[in-house]
């Protein structure tokens, strides 16, 4: 492994700023690796030299970055993993990406994903599945599987993705890296091709919590183009904690029992022991409504997506398949442009919003969402964080769950409640089960990102997981 690859993004950026590392050399090292990628982690890689407009003096130090396909990037393919947007190059760039570039990160590549972020394996991409660098017969998780696999494989130093019900945390866990879903509203959604507007939130993938904090600090901020954006109340700090003294961890019984693979539970228990050794108290608690999280999520997210995806009608951009009249043009375009999972969710969502069914489905799901959020609010009276395994299992084999949507949906069981509550959560690698990485999730109150990062940092130091093990 070359010396450059050994460096975390923060270290590489520091060397570029101090003049010890040439930003062009750094760019080329990763560009050549990204171009040689054989995991199908990318949908586009910049073949040229590093973009001159990027100021390596910024906090991100000229360290190249991978961007999930669904972030609009001016003039660069932004297809959201869908055939219906094949070849689409937007005329503008997403705010989050603008902020990263302004902070000194040149865009090296667009990363593969499940179509419109719907999936937990990246097998729903119209551009083929991404492979897990730990085991190429297995999935990297999803929907931000390309972003996770690329960081784990060392073909980008860091990347960003989006998380709607677990799409950052679950692939981070399955690929043995750090993934953070910020508080809803911390990062602008402007320019993110929408899946479910009330849940979608952008966040970083990185080899460690320090890199994740750097990216989050650059991405977050209020945006006049996104009414739901708030930014963060305080600057993101580089995490420094080395212990968990006085930290109260709540372990929700509902998310740590049935349905979790034994190997994952074993790693989880070990990490809880470590946490105690670092000074934390660990107590079992309840999130009584969280078992209904998946059901509520799979009504709210499809309902919003059924509306968000209405714009892909063949009229103005993307795929158009002509028909004999307007209606047949619509139906043929959408029949051919959307994949099976997208169609399934558009149908579910359309049904859930229909006159006569709205109250029973969408309305009820919103009430459950409120109750789930209240569970967490009550938890913060007794606990600093709620911790769970990130995903119920390790990376599964390609094709293992594609015929069983419910089995696929269960991957999100531990991550969906936090999404519904709009609260931040991180996944850090906490060991292996059957030779494959396992993730540990730490969730906190809204806007507690700095405290979450500190706690994750302390555990990360104690766990000592090497996120570079899957580098080719």
């Amino acid at each position, binding site marked *: 492994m070359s010396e450059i690859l050994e460096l975390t993004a923060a270290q590489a950026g520091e060397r570029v700023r101090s003049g010890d590392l040439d930003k062009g050399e750094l760019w080329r090292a990763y560009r050549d690796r990204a171009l040689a990628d054989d995991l199908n982690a990318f949908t586009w890689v910049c073949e040229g030299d590093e973009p001159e407009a990027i100021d390596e003096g910024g906090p991100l130090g000229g360290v190249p970055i991978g961007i999930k396909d669904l972030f*609009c990037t001016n003039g660069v393919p932004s297809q959201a993993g869908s055939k219906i947007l094949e070849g689409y190059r937007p005329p503008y760039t997403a705010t989050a990406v603008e902020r990263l570039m302004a902070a000194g990160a040149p865009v090296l590549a667009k990363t593969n994903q499940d179509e419109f972020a719907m999936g937990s394996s990246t097998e729903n991409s119209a551009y083929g599945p991404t492979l897990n660098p730990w085991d190429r017969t297995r999935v990297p998780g999803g929907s931000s599987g390309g972003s996770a696999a690329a960081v784990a494989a060392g073909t980008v130093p860091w990347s960003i993705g989006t998380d709607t019900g677990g799409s950052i945390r679950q692939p981070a866990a399955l690929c043995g890296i750090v993934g953070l879903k910020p508080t809803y509203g911390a990062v602008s959604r402007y320019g993110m091709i929408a899946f479910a507007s009330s849940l979608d939130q952008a966040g970083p993938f990185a080899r460690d919590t320090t890199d994740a904090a750097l990216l989050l600090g650059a991405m977050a901020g209020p945006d006049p183009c996104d009414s739901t954006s708030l930014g963060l109340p305080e600057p993101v700090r580089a995490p420094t904690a080395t212990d968990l003294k006085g930290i109260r961890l709540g372990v929700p019984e509902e998310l740590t029992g049935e349905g979790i693979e034994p190997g994952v539970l074993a790693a989880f228990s070990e990490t809880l022991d470590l946490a105690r050794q670092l000074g934390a108290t660990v107590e079992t608690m309840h999130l009584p409504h969280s078992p209904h999280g998946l059901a509520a999520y799979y009504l709210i997210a499809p309902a919003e997506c059924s509306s968000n995806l209405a714009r892909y009608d063949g*009229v103005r951009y993307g795929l158009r398949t002509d028909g004999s009249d307007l209606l047949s043009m619509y139906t043929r375009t959408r029949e051919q442009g959307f994949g099976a999972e997208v169609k399934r969710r558009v149908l579910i969502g359309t049904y859930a919003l*229909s006159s006569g069914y709205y109250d029973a489905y969408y309305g009820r799901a919103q009430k459950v969402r409120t109750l789930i959020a209240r569970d967490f609010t009550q938890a913060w009276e007794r606990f600093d964080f709620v911790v769970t395994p990130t995903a119920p299992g390790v990376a599964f084999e390609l094709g293992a769950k594609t015929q069983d949507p419910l089995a696929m949906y269960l991957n999100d069981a531990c991550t969906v409640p936090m999404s519904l509550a709009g609260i931040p959560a991180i996944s850090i690698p906490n060991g292996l089960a059957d030779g494959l990485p396992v993730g540990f999730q730490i969730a906190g109150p809204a806007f507690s990102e700095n405290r979450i990062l500190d706690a994750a940092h302390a555990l990360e130091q104690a766990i000592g997981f090497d996120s570079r093990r899957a580098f080719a």
Partner: protein
Amino acid sequence: MTELEPVIGLEIHVQLDTRTKMFCACELGFGEEPNTRTCPVCLGLPGSLPVVNAQAVQYGLMMGLALECEIAPRSIFHRKNYFYPDLAKGYQISQYDIPLCSGGRLGDVRLHRIHLEEDAAKLVHLGQSGRIHGSDASIVDYNRGGTPLAEIVTEPDIHSAEQARDWLILLRETLRQLGVSDVNMEEGSLRADANVSVRPVGTTELGTKTELKNMNSFRFLAQGIEAEVKRQAALIESGQPVVQETLHFDPVTGGLRPLRSKEEAHDYRYFPEPDLVPVAPTPEMVEAARAALPELPAARIARYESDFGLSADTARLFAFDPGWGDYFEQVEGDPRTVANWVTELRARADSPDAVEPAALAKLVGLVEARTVTSGNARVVLDRLAAEGGDPAEIVEREDLGALGDSGELAGIVAKVIEDNPDVVERIRGGNAKAMGALVGPIMRETKGKADGGEVNRLIREQLGV
């Protein structure tokens, strides 16, 4: 046969005259090259997000306050989902169950609500059909897409086509004076649909209603409602039911044509727009909107009638033309006399700026003092409107002063009587109307300086009739 009463409610769409569109920073414009006023937001490009136009909210608040509505502390936007090529996102962002303004009243009609939404883009269908079905091609101009709209919905308080037309004229004038829209029905910045039903007089239950669209003038609105009321009455009288449907007014035939029911069968799947936060007007916003309200036509009419004793027509005239109304209030003198002279001036001048209020007051004073006759005062007004100046000087310079009691007028009357023996004979024969044939020559002779009443008196005196 029981007598039937029309029950009419109006739904009015008003394009707001804001600087930019409802949810993006594109400037509004009319007549620009197609698709030059667009951005990722109003084109519905992937990833774009709406942001509510603060000026549109301010205009909505002004309308709500002017029309005595209740302002919602937190109103929300919904998505109205349907597919059509003029709808870039596949949904229209509109207010649904919690509008910005509820209730309210204008004149004798109560309001149900006012809400904000966005306009669709403009479709042009090429080929013979003129509609999307059967056209050779359809092209979209997104310049209009995203224009702010306010939808004003009345209660069914209107009971005739004339009342509907008159009320809409009052509403249009109110909105025009608020400055929130240019309210041009022909250009579509004011569009009115009517919900029409009929019921037996004396009952309170509403009959089945139909919705009338495409009436893009006040005349067409009245025509459409008139035709629909007749149609429904005929159906009921022949024992047939009225079917709830949407009807298009055809300005060529003056008739109504049903829209195909297929185009109507929508389930809009309304749900709260997750890309926007609620509109929660602060007390400062409401006060700013209140402070921006001018005196509105209905209030001005009432004040002119009660404070100045003006006739309803004159009060309405000044209320609908508030520049002249303000001018009227600046001219000192008896209000009703002044109102007549302001109306005279308005017929001669493009704007009230033409003549100083004090100059008009002076002229009115000259008339009242009988220094100048009404007829010659109009000549003075011509001069004033054209070139300004002082009324007394104009009277002097042009020799327009009224004839005094010098006996000069009596002499002229005597001469005209002498010159017209046949007319005199007719008058003596009992034809009082024939006196007019003497007045004309007398007025010519005096160059309009004689007072009409005095002339009549002298004729009678000299003829002894």
